């Protein structure tokens, strides 16, 4: 059962930040698709609940060829999924959203809420990190922007402090000869991944690897960048052999936790397979781009 709370409904972002700073035992709700579950289980029971669902200033999708993509925190997953410009410029984001939970959840849940919840099994984190995204958050005292992979600190914990709200996700403009792919391993399509891997590849003019990013989902307390494997690929000619090697490193570096769905050994193994496959897919995209 959900514990009672005082309900705060700010009219604007400024209002919201001020109210949040004013109340200590206060949680923020927007879509509530993650928050309401933990509140129902009694794990979270704040005295105040700040509802930013109607703060329109944070709901937007902007794109510019130089600046890239900016998504406001209260933009719903469904809006991202259905965005023509995102489909055109960052198809991997649309593909990821299409497999995120269900349409009902995507209609109400938001990207800001998802990232603030910081579940290492969440889909957007690894993909956005592979796209080199940064995240802007702030309070009534000011704003901060950090690369997304530095935003996540631990299981369900971010760099944000009390009073901070996620404000915006910024994905840099797509570069030439770039590809990004994501896949999760699960039994049912809509489930969160037992494990997952996102990979992006940027190519030099001669087709060798300029930069690669490999980010694993549900392989540790935060989305895990396998920098060791990324370094292996840098400057190299890419082929199946090196993808397999990178997969092997990802397998070793991962810190998956076993549960009833899969053993640690199986998770490591599948992470290696997914890494290999996503690198290849990203590489093929980059070649065509």
């Amino acid at each position, binding site marked *: *059962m959900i514990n009672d709370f005082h309900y705060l409904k700010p009219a604007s972002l400024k209002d919201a930040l001020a109210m949040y700073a004013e109340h200590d035992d206060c949680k923020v709700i927007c879509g509530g698709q993650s928050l309401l579950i933990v509140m129902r289980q009694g794990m979270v029971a704040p005295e105040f609940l700040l509802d930013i669902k109607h703060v329109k200033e944070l709901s937007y999708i902007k794109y510019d060829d130089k600046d890239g993509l900016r998504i406001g925190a209260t933009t719903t997953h469904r809006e991202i999924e259905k965005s023509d410009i995102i489909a055109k410029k960052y198809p991997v984001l649309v593909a990821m959203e299409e497999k995120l939970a269900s349409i009902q959840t995507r209609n109400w849940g938001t990207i800001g809420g998802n990232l603030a919840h910081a579940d290492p099994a969440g889909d957007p984190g690894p993909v956005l990190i592979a796209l080199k995204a940064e995240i802007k958050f702030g309070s009534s005292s000011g704003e901060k922007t950090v690369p997304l992979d530095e935003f996540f600190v631990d299981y369900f914990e971010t760099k944000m402090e009390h009073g901070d709200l996620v404000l915006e996700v910024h994905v840099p403009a797509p570069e030439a000869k770039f590809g990004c792919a994501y896949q999760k*391993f699960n*039994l*049912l*399509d*809509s*489930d969160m991944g037992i494990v997952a891997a996102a990979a992006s590849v940027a190519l030099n003019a001669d087709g060798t690897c300029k930069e690669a990013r490999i980010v694993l989902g549900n392989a540790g307390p935060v989305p895990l960048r396998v920098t060791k494997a990324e370094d292996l690929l840098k400057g190299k000619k890419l082929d199946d052999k090196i993808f397999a090697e990178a997969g092997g490193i990802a397998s070793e570096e991962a810190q998956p936790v076993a549960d*009833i*769905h*899969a*053993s640690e050994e*199986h998770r490591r*193994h*599948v992470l290696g*397979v*997914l890494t290999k496959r996503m690198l290849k897919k990203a590489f093929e995209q980059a070649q065509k781009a």
Partner: protein
Amino acid sequence: MSHAKYSVINTHVHNIDGVAKVTGRATYTFDVNLPGMLHGKILRSPHPHAKILSIDTTRALELPGVKIVVTGKDTLGIKQGIWRRYEELCDEQVLPLEKVRYIGEPVAAVAAITEEIAEAALDLIDVEYEVLPAVYEPLEAIKKEAPTIHEGVERNVNVTRHIEWGDVDEAFEEADYIREDWFKCSGQAHMCMETRAAVSSFTPEGKLTCWASTQSAYYTQGLLAGVLGLREGDVRVLAPYVGGGFGGKFELDAAMFCSAVMSMKLFKPVKVVFSREEDFIASKRRTPMFYYVRTGIKKDGTFCARESRMFSNGGAYTGMGATALYLSGFFHSFPYKWRGYRYDGYRVYTNTLPSTSMRGFGAPQAMFCSEQQIDWICADLGLDPFEVRRKNGHTEGYEVPGQAFIASCGLEQCINEIEKWVKSKGKLPANRGIGISSCGFMSGGIFNWFDSPYSFSSAVVTINVDGTVELHVGCQDIGQGSNTTMAIIAAETLGVKVEDIRVHSGDTAHCPADLGAWGSRQTLMAGNAVKMACEDAKKQLLEFAYAEMGINIVYDLDIKDRWVHIVARPERGLKYEELVKKALRAKDGQRIMGRGYYTPHRKGMISPAYSYMMQAVDAEVDPETGKIKIHEVMTAHDCGQPINQLGLIGQLEGAASMALGYAYLEDMPMEDGKLMNPNLVDYKVIKAPEMPEAGIIEIDTYEPEGPYGAKEAGEGLTNPTAAALGNAIYSAMGIQMKELPITPERVLKALREKKEQEAQKK
């Protein structure tokens, strides 16, 4: 299809409850709301095995809004069970007095003015336990040193079953090849969309009304009366629309019992609805089974002998587990002729959630073992899996020695159709295969373990002056469409339209007793009762027609499409509505009423009729991750005469979805008796994107025992799928899956082991 042409039977008829269901008008027990109704919640044992030393309810009673707290001490303490015929199998006090035997077992119940208060009160009930050693696996619980779960039951062996025919040892001597394997079959949750729910209302006249999500209003009535010390006739059970049953909702559950006990003390309505979590941990599940199978076969493919031993995890109480034990062993021989057959089943108590009936009733487990082993034997001997099944399959007129008489049997046609279908698929890409499984199933059971004095099914039909028909049946519609099936049979028999029939069911005060919706019995048994009742009414009507029409005695009359007519000269007749009016007047204003009933007599040990089928599953395995993708399911199916066309398709597709879940998705892992995934995030139920196309090829037979030749469809269809998937994976990857569910991790493990074995051979 050469099925006889009927006006209503096997035509595209809308489900008669359809409009109610698609407009939100259908009310379930979940929705029942009565004036002054209180909300009940149940406190459950956190221990798998413990003595209850004391229960202090003082603090809970002090919470404002709480009206009562009950424990076993507030009940008659009667040990009940659905196998009423055998006292020793009536082993369950719903609210136990002395000890708890599984995590989740009810120990107390609260009724309060809101759900929230009732839930808060649970934390204020102080129970003192003396924890006892517990045992969780049947092969452990059967050991001498295992803790005793039920006093006086040695080795925790709850029930045993022995089935044997022929000279088994001699039959093994005849065999050219013998193979033995061990299998492990998992449990499964019914996972009805509507969880267990009941609303009880006891009034000052000493009568109890109970709305219950039940598969048998009659069983609920009898069981409640038994434990509450009431006359059955003073208990009225209403089953409004029921949100699924699948075998889990015809015993006495804690929602029914606790709501009734509390209402009897308060004289107020009390509602108890299980949360989804409670439904997982505390409503009985499909029986997990360990199967040892030894099969002897001649090199030409003739089956000689089979000897099987099965240990089932009975959990803490008997429930319907005794039936599952028997049926598993019987259908494990299906659908083949064995010269010698021996089955020994042992149902063993453990300190886990009790296991009971679930769609297929032990047969899905039995087929998983039998049908896979047959394919492996074929591979060992270089035999064709279709040919071997055809060679040994049941045929019309066969007698399973001492057990069953097979009347209609379309097995061979089923095998032929699927063989054709599989061949039409041609060569499949790598890592992809098609697996087959044949089976058969019962159309209702013979054995009266409930010890009912009533006919197994009954029906009463009454014709109103305008020709509309009231049909009172005891069979229960739980979604499978029995209301519609009975309306179809009634309409066909009487010669009217389905929209002329109003079906009354799910109310013990108005409807005749019927054993209810389980064992795939209703189409055959209740259908026969309805047919008999309608034939009775039609005969009475036609008596007036003969008089009215004054025709020569050699002519026969019949009614079809609301037209009473001479069969040989159908243009001569009168309107059905006209005839009804006249008949009513002639009977001093009394409506024509017909009665019908059915109980199988002298039909063997198991069932009056058997469905047959063969199923093929087309599946693909990702060799690197072990992930399984089901491409298609195709079933050739003999249910005699299909009655409810839309219903049949629904049963096939629905059974396939549930059976696929059993095969590769659903599992109930326990740690120290605790269920690890009691929610729909971690318990994987198949969803739309994973559900493959599931086609049906209907095989035409006529079952003399069934109404219009019909027999079961829907439960039997759950039986073959796990085996067929296993065989598909064997065909694709050469690995033998001996454990359910077939998970990616188990697939990879088997692939690794196969690789190691092959490396060793080199």
